[in-house]
């Protein structure tokens, strides 16, 4: 029977070796893309091999006894027990091994804690259930939402290669520069983890945590939230896109221009007419398929907006539905998909079209505040 166990263990070992060729049989940590991640990988492998050697010795003794000292083979038990020298030896030797292990671990830890002299500061804020990135001092800030379509999650569509690990807007960073992350949360505790960078830090509401990285090569590095943060904990991935400093500078300039344009629209004083006109365009391109051009929808699946309680009364609830969607229904969350201006326009349109003459104006800044305040 023991032979069974052994052949099975050997089988598992061979299977894992064979698995090396296929990515989906990955059995080990990746060395990652930074100096720190490589140090961590080396620590991981060192302690692993120490464990393997000690394990081989201990299990060796056990298996030797199990094979050679069986009563069935006529083994007669020796009576020895209690030996102080042996006890001291197997206390002191492991202690020395551990001290040997603690030295490199301490060195790496000190390095990880050295957040000084960063070239770029990025504020990472966790929300239920997405990340916000703020390039400090650059005026660039955006939300990063999971981009995997719902149909893939519910198995109605084939899953893509980066299923659950893709976002609408990745965190773009330069290679070769020290990037400091300041990490916090707006609601519950999250944890920001990118395995290739060996950065994992909890995002704690009310407190700010620090971490840093310096990425060698351009590339896309994916990670996930690693602290249980509620229902959609599995669905708030992280994508870091490392570009060369030149490409990064270009990207940042473009992103600033877009942000400025958006901000201008957001801060602009809008009249009802302007919003209605823009809102109608958005409605026609985005909402009309379900809610129909006359706003009457197709009840009960797609509710009517004309004379609707929600549309006529509570503005905040209305904004909430459009920005966050209605879980379990066809109503998607448009917050991540449309600009603040478009959302404000379409909501204003819905509140004033088809005889819903509330006269309410919802300005882009209201949407922005709503999103920020969420």
């Amino acid at each position, binding site marked *: *029977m023991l032979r*069974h166990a052994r052949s*099975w263990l050997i089988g598992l070992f061979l299977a894992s070796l064979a698995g090396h060729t296929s*990515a*989906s*049989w*990955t*059995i*080990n*940590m990746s060395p990652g893309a930074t100096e*720190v991640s490589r140090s*961590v990988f080396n*620590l*991981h492998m060192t*302690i692993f091999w120490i*464990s393997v050697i*000690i394990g081989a010795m201990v299990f060796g*003794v*056990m298996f*030797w*006894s*199990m094979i050679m*000292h*069986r009563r069935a083979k006529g*083994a007669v*038990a020796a009576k*020895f*027990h*209690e030996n102080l020298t*042996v*006890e001291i030896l*197997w206390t002191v030797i492991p*202690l020395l091994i551990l001290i040997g*292990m*603690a030295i490199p*671990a301490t060195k790496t830890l000190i390095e990880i*804690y050295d957040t000084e002299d960063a070239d770029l500061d990025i504020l990472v804020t966790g929300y239920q259930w997405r990340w916000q990135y703020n390039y400090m001092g650059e005026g660039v800030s955006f939300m990063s939402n999971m981009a995997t379509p719902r149909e893939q999650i*519910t*198995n109605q569509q084939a*899953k893509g290669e*980066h299923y*659950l*690990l893709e976002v609408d807007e990745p965190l773009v960073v330069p290679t070769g520069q020290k990037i400091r992350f300041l990490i916090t949360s707006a*609601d*519950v505790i999250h944890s920001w*983890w990118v395995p290739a960078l*060996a950065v994992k830090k*909890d995002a*704690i509401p*009310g*407190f700010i*945590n620090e971490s840093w990285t310096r990425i060698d090569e351009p590339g896309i590095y994916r990670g*996930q939230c*690693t602290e*249980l*943060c*509620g*229902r959609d*904990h*599995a669905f708030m991935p992280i994508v870091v896109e490392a570009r060369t400093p030149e490409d990064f500078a270009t990207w940042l300039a473009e992103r600033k221009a877009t942000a400025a344009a958006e901000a201008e629209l957001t801060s602009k004083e809008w009249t009802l007419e302007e919003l209605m006109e823009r809102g109608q365009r958005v409605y026609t391109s985005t909402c009309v398929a379900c809610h129909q051009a006359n706003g009457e929808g197709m009840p009960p699946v797609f509710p009517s907006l004309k004379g609707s309680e929600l549309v006529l009364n509570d503005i905040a609830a209305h904004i909430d539905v459009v920005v966050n969607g209605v879980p379990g229904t066809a109503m998607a969350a448009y917050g991540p998909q449309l600009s603040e201006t478009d959302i404000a326009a379409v909501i204003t349109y819905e509140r004033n079209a088809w005889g819903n003459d509330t006269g309410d104006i919802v300005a882009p800044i209201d949407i922005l505040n709503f999103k920020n305040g969420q």
Partner: protein
Amino acid sequence: MSAVIDHHTDHAHGPAKGLMRWVLTTNHKDIGSMYLWFSFAMFLLGGTLAMVIRAELFQPGLQLVDPNFFNQMTTMHGLIMVFGAVMPAFVGLANWMVPLMIGAPDMALPRMNNFSFWLLPAAFGLLVSTLFMEGGAPNFGWTFYAPLSTTYGPQSTTFFIFAIHLAGISSIMGAINIIATILNMRAPGMTLMKMPMFAWTWLITAFLLIAVMPVLAGVVTMMLMDIHFGTSFFSAAGGGDPVLFQHVFWFFGHPEVYIMILPAFGAVSMIIPAFSRKPLFGYTSMVYATGAIAFLSFAVWAHHMFTVGIPLTGQLFFMYATMLIAVPTGVKVFNWATTMFRGSLSFEAPMLFAVAFVILFTIGGFSGLMLAIAPADYQYHDTYFVVAHFHYVLVPGAIFGIFASAYYWLPKWTGHMYDEVLAKTHFWMSFIGMNLAFFPMHFVGLAGMPRRIPDYNMMFANFNMVSSIGAFMFGATQLLFLYIVIKTIRGGKPAPAKPWDGAEGLEWTVPSPAPYHTFSTPPEVK
């Protein structure tokens, strides 16, 4: 040891008849049996929830349950297994065996013993009822970190807190009882350093329980106050701190880990010598090692929190202290291996479980040592690597320890030998199922799969499927154990007073099944 066999079956205080025997019993054997049955029922319930988890994780995509329900499953699985299955099983074993081992007629506080058991069905009835409440059961993980469990918790959190209080009071009373029994009711001549290892490890465990269960009660009380009375212990908005929750919780939580393993250490330290027919290699060092582990367990809690951002000096302190725990744990493992060396080994079911315990627990210990290295922990923390680690110490650790104990003492409890072929089948199916379920979790964890997620990328799909198959196998096998136990109770080869030729201890000097009252006259221990 003199053969003190006291026959008291015709004693005036035989068991009462009917249901009230169990409701009002103060007999340590009855209460022990109830604890064991209760814990097995909870083991099956917690296991069923695990089957739901593994079924959802069988493939990528959401197939069976909503993510929120998935979170309720992981939370309830953890809570039920820790507080409902493992801890009561050890209390049950202690109730049955500690008086028999130390030559006491019963536990020191028999009426309290009854009460501490009957609190448990109340506690877990309450906890399980939350599954049917509006808003669902607790969904914040068994570690219930604030503010997810306070400001953002479901309505049922209050019931969860009350259930934890009840279970905690039960554990504390059980621990007081065990300490009082061990310290005050030993037979003449049974000095502390002559006590069987199981009594020793339970004595230390009981002190751990008394030290940390009140802290758990404190932390859930603080939660209750935050939720209902407007305090802000854990809410940053009111000047509190969510990280404080983690410190207080893990101040309880780490010793709790040892509470779940030390009694198994004790049982295995008795079973291995029995089936090696050779004394335990280092009894004294085993006792000291257990004490050292218990002592160190109070100084390592923040290794569960390496990623929350404690200062460098704190991080280093907790890293070194955690690595240090490997030393006494290593001493125990080396002692077990040396006990087997040059023995005369036979492999009945208790020995199979005990040997698997040593090997697989050691593997769990190695991954624990890896987790202690703080920089590496940044990569392991909250991934499936951690899930693999603690299932390796708890399933082949605590649970195999309980199975080994159950088979070892079943003849004493029932008066019948269990079916060895079925028991070996149970072992091999459990062993294979458990390794299939949990070994691949190391791989997906290292490859980057976070824990507590209902859905994952395809790169983790293969090993998750293997895990699920192993888990189903392990789960189904436990029904076989139920069958074996029932079969043994109902009949089978009559067991002699000492069914294991290498076994030592007072429990083997009384007939099998152990009479309702034993050691009414204390035995003489040389």
